[in-house]
């Protein structure tokens, strides 16, 4: 699943992530495409606080950073 959070300012991307994490199966990845620079530290911090795995950063076709999160529970 890919969440398009372009133009959404923090903390909105992690709110979007929290709302949709339940829609992927445990062990599956959810990707957040976000252009707010605060999304990078905040998504990693959210994973730590919520017990999910931060699976790193890739880049969307348009160059927007895309953060991958693995649902662990």
């Amino acid at each position, binding site marked *: 699943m890919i969440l398009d959070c372009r133009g959404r300012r923090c*903390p909105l991307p*992690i709110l979007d992530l929290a709302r949709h994490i339940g829609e992927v199966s445990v062990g599956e990845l959810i990707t957040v495409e976000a252009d707010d*620079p*605060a999304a990078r*530290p*905040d998504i990693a*911090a*959210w994973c730590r*606080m919520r017990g999910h795995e931060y699976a790193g950063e890739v880049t969307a076709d348009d160059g927007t950073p895309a953060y991958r999160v693995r649902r662990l529970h």
Partner: protein
Amino acid sequence: MGAYLDAAAGAPLHPVAREALLAALDDGWADPDRLYGASRRARLLLDAAREAVAEVLGTAPDTISFAANGTQALHAAVAGTLAGDRRAAGLVHSAVEHSAVLHAAEAHVAAGGVAAAVGVDRVARVDADEFAAACTAGVAAAALQAANHEVGTLQPVDEVAGRIAVPLVVDATHVLGHTDVPAGWSVLAADARMWGGPDVGVLAVRERTRWRSPFPSDEREFGRVPGVPNVPAVVAAAASLRAVEAERRELAQRHRAWIARIRDTVARTVPDVEVLGDPDGRLPHLVTFSCLYADGEALLTGLDRRAFAVSSGSSCTASTLEPSHVLVAIGALTSGNLRVSLHRGTTEAEIDEFLAALPDVVAEVRAELGAAGL
């Protein structure tokens, strides 16, 4: 109701500073370097202020120069120490220095120099061995803050100083007047606003430390800060420092207890909060935490509506869209960030009121974002 809890952005003017400022506006207005009575009176006041600051820092008066403000002192400290070495061009600094140090580093790089940032752990502390190891051949200066301005963690300044051969520039902005100043500095910068003085920067350069003015220079302030010093402000800054030093231990003890209480209470009464910085090796008067699903600007607005003044390292709360480099360096949540810092006028009743108001403010902001139940 309400309280000013942003002392790390500048404490309210100390009553002693106000009194000294008013007196010095009458007696110390003249240029201290002229040959007439009014000038001699200004010179006496300036010299006495310098001696007072030197005594607190445990150094000789002629190592102290006064700058317009803390930022200018930090710029001069970093740039002047780099300029003092005509062969090496490297600067080593921690990743969590104040932006004034980082701006000086950027200017150094733009002018052809080299700068390297040393990373920190989860509480924002550098490892002394790692920092010292970065100070290799080719490095002209190292810069390390005495305490982090955002999360309050003390840095191992003296351990680093004992391991390196290059001059160590120490940003003492948030320790002076609050806790012991580490002795390991070669060049030191401080800001009188942090101890209830007016805008005055302190630049101290130890004997035998190579330092060369990075500005066009004149004979003022031992050639380190050009232009006529603001004598009344300097007199007020020194008077305030002396007064604050006299009550420092008692005040620090009180602040430490209140900060510990804020750390515990916030963690208990605000759901999904991360309290940042070292719980023990820290400044006595400052605490920082980040609230999940809340934005810093809305928190500041909600607190301001209840007349509480604090600050935030979240993005969109300053002139930049970038979150605080300190929060990023320690891997902390950057949204919903708040820093609370105490001054000598802070009362326990103010702490009580703040702690009572905070959970509601956070809950309001979260409700507005639709974060309930997430």
